[in-house]
Every structure is written in C-alpha cells, then in structure tokens.
C-alpha cells in the first residue's frame, strides 16, 4: 500500500479517559463538599483543637495552624466555601459568555463584528484585573459575580467564533436557501451546540473562576474572615511557609486538585487554554 493512514483513535481514547477521570474527580470533590460537615473533625474556625503548629500526624492528618485549628477540617470547610462561590460564578460566566456569544454571532454582521472586537479586547486583559475592577465598582460581596464576569469574555469569544463557524457552514447556507430564518438557526445553536458543549463549557468556566476567586481572596479582595476559602487559607499561611509548610500545602493541593479535575473534565485541549 502506498500510504499509511494515521488514526487519531488512540489520542481520542486518551482524551476521553482523561475527561472521564476529570468528571470522576469533580464528583468526588462534590461528595466531599456536601459531606464536609460530617467528614470534618471540627466546625469551621474552631480554634485550640490541638497544639499550635503541629505537623501532620495520625491524630491531625494535615497538622494544625497557629491557632490550633485542625487543618483537615479547615481545608474541607474552605473547599466547601470555594465551590459554593465558584458555582454561581460559573453560571454567570455561562450566561454572560457562552449564551450571549451565541446570540451576538447572529446579530447583523457589522454590529456582530463590533461586539466581537470589544469583547475580544476585554478577553485580552488579565481576568484578575477585570475582577478587581468590578469589585472596586461594587463590594466584596459581589466577588463571585466579578469572577464570573471577568471569565466571561474568553467564553464569549469562544462561543461567538463557534457560532460564526456554524453560520458559515454549508448546512446553514442550505437552510437559508430554503427560507429558514436566523432565529431558527439560532435555536439550532442553542439546542444542539449549547447542549452538546454545556458540560465542557461549565467545567472550563469552573476552573477559570475558581482560580480567579482564590486569587482574589489571596490578595484580600474576596472572602472575608471568619468565612475562609482556600485562597484565604493560603494567604493566612504566608508567614509560615518556611517552617510550617503544611499550612499552605494542603489547601493549595486541594485547590490544584479542584482546578485540575475541572480542566480535565473540560477536555485536555480546552483545559490547557482555560
């Protein structure tokens, strides 16, 4: 035979396996979050549970912090807080990004181009900067919305470009040639494209907003004590990085695990760009 056909099946199988692994990881995190009160040894912010700055041991698996709080319990509560603020932020990203992106692509061409250009400029700015700007214009209570809005431009651009591709597709041209209106074509996008990509879009948005929310908290723009999320826990551990590494390492590991699972669930290619 003259030419060998290279099959992408192996790569697809790997991507699918990683995607499934990501969703399983997210599922386990969801279970841990929903059972956090049950799994934790102590309520959130309960001090003097053990000795101060005790290193990980069979009694305190993640060690304790400077106030004697059990870090395993604190990490679980902080993970719960992080996920609870990330979920509405994800919804904001999907609504303001994916949904509006699909709709904007069906606007008259010049208007659509203008909107795409403006949102493209926003997407090129650091999302964190946008989030800080939104919080500056409102309050810290709006951190979740700010994170959602700051991640939205990137999602908007992706959805817009996909919808434009669909609009230029042969099947759309044939549909227009038989009198199918733009509204019906938009419905197709919403029903099929949005439905088929909603899970991966949500996972990608979850990874992005989690990172933004945690960074906001780390910088002091997000969660307010005594409600601690993972970013705030890591920020609180800053003075002890060198001699009490466990104070930052376990919350950071939980954060990395959450983002990694979300990125894998979104698909490796998508996750890399999220």
């Amino acid at each position, binding site marked *: *035979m*003259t*030419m*060998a*056909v*290279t099959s992408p099946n192996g790569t697809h199988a790997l991507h699918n396996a990683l995607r499934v692994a990501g969703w399983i990881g997210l599922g386990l995190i969801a279970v841990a979050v929903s059972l956090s009160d049950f799994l934790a040894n102590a309520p959130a912010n309960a001090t003097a549970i053990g000795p101060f700055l005790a290193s990980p041991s069979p009694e305190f698996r993640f060690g304790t912090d400077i106030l004697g709080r059990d870090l395993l319990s604190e990490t679980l509560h902080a993970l719960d807080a992080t996920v609870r603020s990330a979920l509405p932020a994800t919804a904001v990203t999907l609504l303001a990004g994916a949904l509006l992106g699909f709709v904007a692509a069906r606007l008259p061409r010049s208007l659509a181009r203008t909107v795409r250009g403006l949102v493209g400029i926003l997407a090129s700015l650091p999302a964190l900067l946008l989030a800080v700007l939104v919080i500056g214009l409102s309050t810290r209570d709006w951190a979740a919305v700010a994170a959602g809005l700051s991640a939205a431009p990137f999602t908007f651009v992706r959805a817009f470009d996909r919808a434009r591709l669909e609009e230029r*597709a*042969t*099947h*759309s*041209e*044939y*549909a*227009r*040639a*038989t*009198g*199918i*209106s733009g509204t*019906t074509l938009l419905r*197709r996008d919403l029903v*099929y*494209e949005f439905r*088929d990509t909603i899970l991966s879009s949500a996972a990608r948005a979850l990874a992005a907003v989690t990172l933004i929310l945690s960074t906001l908290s780390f910088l002091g723009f997000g969660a307010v004590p005594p409600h601690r999320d993972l970013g705030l826990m890591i920020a609180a551990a800053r003075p002890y990085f060198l001699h009490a590494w466990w104070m930052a390492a376990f919350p950071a590991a939980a954060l990395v695990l959450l983002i990694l699972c979300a990125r894998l669930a979104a698909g490796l290619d998508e996750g890399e760009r999220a």
Partner: protein
Amino acid sequence: MSEPRPILEVKDLGVSRGSTIELERLSFRLDGGETLVLLGDENSGKDVLLRVLGSYLQRGDELSGTIKLGEGPALPAAKRAKIGLRIVYLAAAAEAPLNPHASVLAQLSRAIARRTGSPRTSAREELRIALERFPDAPTLAALNQRPGALGAKDLSWALLAAAMAQTPDLLIADHAFGDLTPRSIRSIVGALMAEQKRLGFALLYAARGLKAAARLDSRVIVLRQGKVIEEGSFTRLASGQSHAYTRTLFKALPKPLAAPPARNATREPLLQVQGLDLIGAKKNAPRSRDGITFELRRGASLALIGEDGSGRRELVRALLGLDRVAGGRVVLDQVDMSILSAPMTSRMRRRIAFITGADDALDPRMTLWDTVDEPLRAHLRLPRDMVAGHRETALKRVGLASHDGRRAVATLSPFDKRRLQVARAIVSAPFLAVIDEPLRGLDAFAQSILTELLEDFRRQEGPAFLVITADVGVAQVLAEDAMFFKDHKVVERGALRDILRNPRDEETRELIEASAPPVRDRGSVDLPQVSTYNVPQRTAVPE
C-alpha cells in the same frame, strides 16, 4: 502469445467476525494486464477484501481460504509472504489519506520515494513524468498546494500519476473516480487503461457506482452482503440477462433515448428569468454578456447541465436571491424578486427545497426527526401531533421510518442523508425543488432507489425541478428540458430529447458522449442492449 503473468489468485476466501460473515468463499484470479471490477454497496464485502489484501486486518477477523500473489505459493489468507510484487492503492480524491495541511506534491513525492526506495528528488521527477503523460492532468507546480485547494479532478489525476510513478504490478482502486463528472471519468479512465496497456499491471477496481465501471468495461463480480451474486462481463450484466439484484444495480446506468417522464406541468409560469447577468462568486469570474433568459412552468423540470464552474450553481444562487446579479430580472411565483426586502425574499424561499449530493447539506447535530420537523415548525407553526403525522408519512415514503428518530444526522450513511433530504423536501410541499447532483457518491443500488424516490416525489408533490448535473443520464431521468452551460454561458437549450438526438454545440456533444457508456466494437459478442445514446457523428450539425 506469451503466457499471462499471474498476479493475484484468491481461493475460497472467507472473512467472519464472530457470528457475522463478511465475505463468503470468494474466488477469482487476476493476471497482468487484466481488470476486475468488484461491484457492490457499502456492506457488500468488497471493502473487506481490500482490507485483507492490504493486510489491514481488524481484531476479531477470522480468515479462511488462500491468497496467491505473483509466482509465490498459495498461502492462508491471514499470512503474507514477502514477495517482489508491487501493490499500489489508489483512493478516491475525497478519501485519499492525505494530510490536509501539507502540500500534495510533497506528500505524493514522499509516498513514491518510500515505496520505490528512491531519493525524494527522483520520486518527484517520476511524478512529473507521469503527470506529463496525461494531457488533462495538472502540472507538477500546480500540486504544490494543500489537498483542499485542488479540485477533485486534479487531485484524482495527481493520485493516478503517483500510482503510475510506482510502476505497480497490482493496482487496487477503491471507487477511485466514481464521484467525478462523466467527462472527467472518461478522460481519467482512458488514461488508466492506456497506462495498464503500457505497464501491464493488473487492476482490481472496487466500484460503488457504475460510471467508472462502465468505462472499464471488464469482468465484474457482483457482491452483496459478502456473497458473490454473479460474475460476468460488464456488457452481459448490463444487458439485463442477469440476477434481479444486478438488474437493480444496473438501473442506475443511463438509459437509451426513451419517452420523457410523465409531465404534470401546467401553462402557468413559476419562474421567469430575463437577461440575468451572472456575477461569479469570484471577483474575476467571467460575465455573461447576453444574459440568461428562460421560463420554468409549474411542475416542469429543467436540467442545468455543465461541468463544475460552468455557471449553473451561480445561476441558481442568483435566482434565489442569495447572490447579487449585475442585471436582469427574476420573477418567482409572479413576484419580482428584485423589489423584495431580504426578509420577504427569505419568505419566498420557504417553498423551495434542496436535494443535493453534498453530505453536509443537513445539520449534522440535528436528529433525524428534527431535520424533517424543522420546515413544518419554522414555516407553518403546526401543532405537534400534525408535525409528527407529516413526519411519519414522509419518513415512510423514503424508507427511513424504521430508523431511530433521535439519531444524529452525523451518524447516518450518505444514502440515508440523501433520503432524509427528500423527506424534508416532501414535508416542505415546495413549488420548486433544486436537485443538485443527487446521486454523487452513492453506490449503484442507492442511486436506483434515490432516482425512484425523486421521481415519486415529483409525481406526488408536483414541484418544478431544477436539476443541476454534469451527467446527461441523470438529467434524462429527472428532466424534460435542458440548458447546457459553458463558461457561465448557455451554449444550448431546448427539449432534452431533441438535444440528445441532435446536439448543435461541441460542448453539448462532449457532455453527451461522456455520459453515455462506451459502445464496444470488439465484435458482436456481448454488445450492450441498453445504455447507449443515439449520439450522432461529430460532423457539422444543421440548425
């Protein structure tokens, strides 16, 4: 005379996967200089044979029988001895295993070099020499672009040249030219046969359709569901003295001049075109100086016949208001399209249906049911039960009622997609149906069924047909009148039957000759009883 050189001998070859028999006791022998056509649909087993010959066995394949290559011993089919026989695979342009992002020239040179064990520069030179032997083939420089930038015809020439540059002993062609226009098939198959005479290779051609097989005019094995239905010369099988299944397959061949299909056209005009000046999609496209003027009555059928790029599709796009025109007037259903706003033009198009050979004409994400429902929901806003009733009726008529309605279009076969287009057209109750190369890419069986469906659609719903095709045989089945196009101009028009009898223009004559299967002049044996046009000699034809 010297003894023919044995190339391939397959004996009692059987392939099964679990309880499924994919190929059953297939035996044939192929000598150097011989051609064998394997004719059948997607599941006929010819693809399985190619897989076995190419040693692309799949897990679970159980093989029996023997294969003998060249002068080597007959070995069990699962084994393959290393022999000095050069087997070359020739794919269709659309299915060629080429990287879409790399230059065709680089890829073909690399393949030739690897296959012949020669340096890349020598391989390139071999390719150039092979291309120069074919007058209609593109130049070597023209191949220095991505596969997508080359047309199907040029890519087919390039693939053929690459195959010939490897000086094969056995050429396995997998539906290699079936999707080209009749004129391209005639020219490329002619070149292939000349090369076969020169190099003496054996040719195994797996055919879905009949156009290329008719040109090869050789021994044919008809396969169905892994079984050999019958074997014989093409002309004998085409004569009608054959198995019922074979006769169904050969229905797709162009028929001799026959009475045109029943007309239900009225005197009332549906489409009136006056002095339409086409502007091609490209900026430098040639313009029609005189403009195109014609009229299509309700229920009538007009074929727009010409090669790709001759202006037929530009005309249809202009008629439907999809592209601007420099001048002229289009009146559709007694409404001047030029004075309508964009939304009103779109509204007018609701009673127009498209049935095309493009497999991406339907949204691949939609389900089978949604595809049929959409025109009813979007245009008529019918209640759900009425929509379901119309859908069921349409799907039954095209034979898709037993399919799972929630299946995505992307998972359907090309034949099912084509039938789904007909179902969608049926529920639209159109006054005009644009039928654009409807049989492209289908196997002979599917072509016969689809042709019947289209005829039934026209008979029952009574839309006017605008048939875009390069195949006069297709036009003959679906239309009574025709306009022949060349370079964005109409070179001949009139009743198709009259044009077939007495073509006045050279382009028309070429297209008719290319569409008609060749008449054998090798004596009186096996002359085809059907499938020849009454094409006049190439002498001056009186007005």
